[in-house]
């Protein structure tokens, strides 16, 4: 092995993609599998530069289907493995994510959302929220962290590997093109030096032990009843896990009349709008799911109890909105949507929408 990684805490100024590559090194990831697509490319660029220095590996494959399934192969052989993609690549990777859900494989995907549908833009959107939470022909048995800052990209990439290997559900870090390409300051560190535990991977197959008990892993079942048992067992595990992994952030909801509900990078605009309006004495609140899957249903329900209106702002046409409505089923609070598919949302725009209410 080469030099010790990330000695001490370092204040750095880098792109989000670079922060993810460093986070994967910090999380002691063994191997990345990848296929180029903008805006996630630099995760591979930095990983391929760092990997040989830290005794780690990389494989560039023929498409995102292969990237997903080779990563599953790495995971099954007991290595911390991940891949990264965006947009149409995220669509292709859902096939492997489905297999991970069924077979409980702790794969980690980094998603840097681009515009959609189709090829759309390489720039930015929040239009992969539904896909990342519920893609595939299943029940959305996965964990999705929606990050807002480079520090979070670093922190939650490390956390994603721990969550995946603890609960054995596919885990996604949901970023976007802005976070991927923008530079900003953050602190990178060795999580173990900070006293954080890194969950150790375990081989599911392929351990060379003489006379071992062999394992047969499958995702096909013969009868409806057999399948029902498996899916319901996974559902029960997922339900038991949800309160342990759910994360959210909120400010001023206790006495707020209007609460801004946003996720990901849009929550930075909402947070600043909150600060500005509060400074003017306006009774506004701020609520942000950090895990969009599992969604902080109860927490949102409690936060909006005294509010008159919610302003739900997102760079998609109603993907967060659907989650909010589901979470608040039965509540009388008025929901005002601010839907901007594929374009950024600024503090000024949120303040302006607020002033129209």
């Amino acid at each position, binding site marked *: 092995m080469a030099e010790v990684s990330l000695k001490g805490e370092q204040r750095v100024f880098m792109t989000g993609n670079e922060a993810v590559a460093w986070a994967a090194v910090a999380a002691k990831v*063994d*191997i990345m*599998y990848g296929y180029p697509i903008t805006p996630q490319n630099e995760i591979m660029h930095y990983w391929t530069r760092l990997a040989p220095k830290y005794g780690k*590996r990389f*494989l560039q*494959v*023929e*498409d995102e*289907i*292969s990237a997903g*399934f*080779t*990563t*599953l*192969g*790495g995971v*099954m*052989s*007991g*290595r911390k*493995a991940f891949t990264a993609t965006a947009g149409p690549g995220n669509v292709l990777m859902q*096939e*492997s994510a489905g*297999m991970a859900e069924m077979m409980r494989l702790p794969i980690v995907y980094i998603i840097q959302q681009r515009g959609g549908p189709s090829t759309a833009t390489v720039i930015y959107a929040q239009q992969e929220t539904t896909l990342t939470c519920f893609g595939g022909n299943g029940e959305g048995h996965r964990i999705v962290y929606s990050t807002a800052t480079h520090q979070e990209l670093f922190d939650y990439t490390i956390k994603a590997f721990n969550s995946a290997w603890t609960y054995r559900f596919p885990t996604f870090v949901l970023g976007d093109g802005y976070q991927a390409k923008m530079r900003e300051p953050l602190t990178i560190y060795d999580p173990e030096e900070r006293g954080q535990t890194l969950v150790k991977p375990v*081989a599911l*197959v*392929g351990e*060379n*032990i*003489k*006379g*071992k008990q*062999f*394992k*047969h*892993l*499958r*995702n*096909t079942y013969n009868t409806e009843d057999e399948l029902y048992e498996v899916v319901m067992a996974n559902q029960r595990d997922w339900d038991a896990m949800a309160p342990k992994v759910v994360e959210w952030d909120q400010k001023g909801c206790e006495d707020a009349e209007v609460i801004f509900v946003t996720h990901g990078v849009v929550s930075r605009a909402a947070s600043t709008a909150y600060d500005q309006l509060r400074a003017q004495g306006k009774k506004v609140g701020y609520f942000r799911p950090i895990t969009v899957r599992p969604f902080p249903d109860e927490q949102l329900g409690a936060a909006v109890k005294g509010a008159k209106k919610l302003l739900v702002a997102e760079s998609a046409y109603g993907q967060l909105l659907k989650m909010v409505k589901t979470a608040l089923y039965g509540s009388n609070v008025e929901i005002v949507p601010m839907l901007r598919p594929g374009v950024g949302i600024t503090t000024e725009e949120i303040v302006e929408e607020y002033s129209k209410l």
Partner: protein
Amino acid sequence: MQELKENNVLQPAMPSSWNEESKPHKFCPGCGHGIILKALGEAIDELGIKDQVVFGCDIGCSLLSWDFFACDSVQTHHGRTTPVITGMKRANNEIIGIAYMGDGGGYAIGSQHLFNAAVRNEKITIILCNNCNYGMTGGQMAPTTLPGMKTETSPYGRDIEQTGAPTKGPEMVAAVAPEGAYVARGTVANVRQAKGFIKKALENQMAGRGISFVEILSGCPTNWRTNAKQTWEFIEKDMAQYFKVGELRVPQVKEG
């Protein structure tokens, strides 16, 4: 091999790498999968690699082999066994990875994976059962369906003007794989030869030389709607005429 006599009754001869609990296997009477998997089982036994093997199987009839061996096994998605075994081998090169699939999995839905695994010379063994049709889904035309052959999606016979000519997989792999590749085509009509090819394919992986790819010509009497005589005639004459049996690439083994 296990004890042949139990309570003085002659038992069926099974490779010790077979999982007895899943026998008798679930393939149709007359199907070639059982023959191929017996050859593979014997090769695993003879090489003594049972504990290092990870057997990956595809979707289609090949998935019925998910619990066939007393070896670590992974059943994947249609066409995705090649990348799963590739990913495993890249992460842990002590594994002896075997990807088992049909012609649809290898030459249609997973053809990009087969092609690129060959180009990258992945150190894995791919065994592909060619039976000229999609068996599990009810006998549709496959990339390997012979010209004029009737299937559910070519009911008037395969028109190669419309659908192209049958895929020659080993020829394709042999054309693109770098030095160190082992490529062969065997047939269930010559089990001893097929087993030899499979064994060499495993040895090639163990030596870390390159990709090892073996296609085996096989029968599907259920979907072909053939009796035993017709089935063997089709495998031995029609198929072997179009798909030439033999070794296409044998790596030069360095002396000393």
